[in-house]
């Protein structure tokens, strides 16, 4: 038994179910994420990965089962509530506003204000830029043009901005949906190293990917979903590509 497995999980889901009408998208599914742990979630299209992360991140309510945060049962009515409790989801399409700066994106929806002439509230762009620089620095990611819109950045840099936003707001659990898809190889490596940073900071990461190479490069454990049920759970050190593929396709 690894010692990390005795600590209270950051996030635990127990017997989670979700059905849409007669369709059982998720059935009696359980998993846990511990501090500093990267858990890969694998499965074919339609296996229930998206349903699972949407239930965890508050997009919709599970039909059955429970979600525990540091051992405490929680329910999220909205994604906002999940985010306030420290669960941040980073979607495939990054969810960045391309025309805003890094700071503008980090603070989107909760912009800091300052007062001019003692009464007129204005956006505190300087505070946003400073926080952006510090946050990106914590991810070992240095940018010089803090006022440039993020549309000017590469795919990997934009991914880093999305992660930076989560880190700034002190997300303890990051759910990353295909973070390396649609990136060039050097950019994929950069994202993998970002995930290592998050792990070193003691955060929990749920990493969803089709790419077994990336999964094996970054994860501690892998949980395989098939048709809404848990098809298997392995430590990365104790499994291999073939076994995972078999779990995914049900061989």
């Amino acid at each position, binding site marked *: 038994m690894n010692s990390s497995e005795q600590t209270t999980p950051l996030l635990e889901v127990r017997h989670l179910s979700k059905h849409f009408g007669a369709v059982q998208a998720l059935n009696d599914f359980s998993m846990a994420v511990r501090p500093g742990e990267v858990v890969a979630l694998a499965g074919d299209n339609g296996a229930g990965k998206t349903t699972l992360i949407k239930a965890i991140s508050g997009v919709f309510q599970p039909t059955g089962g429970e979600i525990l945060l540091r051992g405490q049962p929680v329910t999220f009515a909205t*994604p906002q509530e999940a985010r306030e409790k420290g669960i941040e989801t980073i979607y495939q399409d990054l969810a960045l506003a391309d025309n805003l700066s890094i700071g503008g994106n980090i603070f989107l929806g909760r912009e800091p204000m300052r007062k001019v002439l003692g009464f007129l509230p204005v*956006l505190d762009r300087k505070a946003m830029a400073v926080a952006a620089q510090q946050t990106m620095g914590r991810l070992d990611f240095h940018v010089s043009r803090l006022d440039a819109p993020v549309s000017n950045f590469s795919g990997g840099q934009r991914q880093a901005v999305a992660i930076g936003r989560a880190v700034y707001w002190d997300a303890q659990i990051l759910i990353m949906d295909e973070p390396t898809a649609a990136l060039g190889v050097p950019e994929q490596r950069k994202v993998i190293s970002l995930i290592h940073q998050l792990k070193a900071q003691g955060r929990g990461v749920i990493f969803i990917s089709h790419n077994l190479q990336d999964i094996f490069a970054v994860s501690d454990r892998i949980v395989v979903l098939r048709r809404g049920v848990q098809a298997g759970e392995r430590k990365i050190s104790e499994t291999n590509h073939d076994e995972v593929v078999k779990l995914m396709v049900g061989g």
Partner: protein
Amino acid sequence: MTSTSPTETHVAPQADHGDPARSWLGRIAEGRAWLFLAGLIICFEVWSRFSFGATFVLNPFNVQSIAIFAVAPLLLATGQTFVIISGGIDLSLGFIMGLAAVVAAHATNMAGAAIPLPLAMLAGILAAVLVAGVPGVINGLLISRLRIPPFIGTLGMFGVARGTAFLLAGGTTVPVQNSWFALLGNGRFYGVPYLVIIAAVFVVVMHYILSQTRFGQHNYAIGANVQAARRAGIDIRGHILRLYVLSAMCAGLGGALYAARFTAGAAQAGEPLLLDSVAAVVIGGASLFGGSGTIFGTVAGALVIAVIQYGLVFVNVEPFWQFIAVGLVIIISVLIDQAQRRFSGARQDE
């Protein structure tokens, strides 16, 4: 986006982000409406001097006339700027302005019978702005709650506001009997028309809202990526509602100032101004795809249109050429905008 295996080769997107030419181009593009305006004024100056031996722009009467001429389209265009940046469009602004002009005339006259004239004037303006807010609320609800595309929702409200305005006006123009209101529309402060002062203050306030407040910041975010804005916790429905009320109230103020200038309210007051308002925003550098645009760009756009319209009359060109000239300027602006986008590799879809 689909998942890709790392063995596939990729053209790394945005690999040229260090290119200094791009930011140079971007800066030129932002200021292009002002450059255009300057070029236009120089053209008319040269034309005027060669044809008539008279100055165009150094004549204070011309400057004043152009400024007054630009006030109403500019008020509509500032509201339209917010809407277009959010990725929408408001086609109802022209007739909301007409409706507001009629309401301003009626309300000023009615109030004038009961309270002192200056107060009646303020009551008339307030009534115009508030009544204009009603179609704005309906637009906002249609678009945010019932998910009707802005083009269709505001097109419907275009008809409703138009009919209501003509009904309220009894199919004619409504004269205003209020000397204060007439003074507001035609008086000057040290040579500067009150209307221009009001418009200038209004523009500064709108610039502040767009560039310095959360509302403005969220407006840009929604225009660029509504999903991102929603996931960031922004209340999209509430924002869209406030947005269309804001643009309608801009048109409402425009209607009230129209009634002051002509001492009459007319349902068709803003009819020709709707497309001018869209044109001013586009010439001012905003993208109809949403996400970009500035108030000062729109000011330049509105002035470009006013200078073309007034200038062509001044140099004695048949007025019908105005339509052709403004139309060409719109097309050229969009062509430049697209070329710039292609150059900078900015993403238009996501």
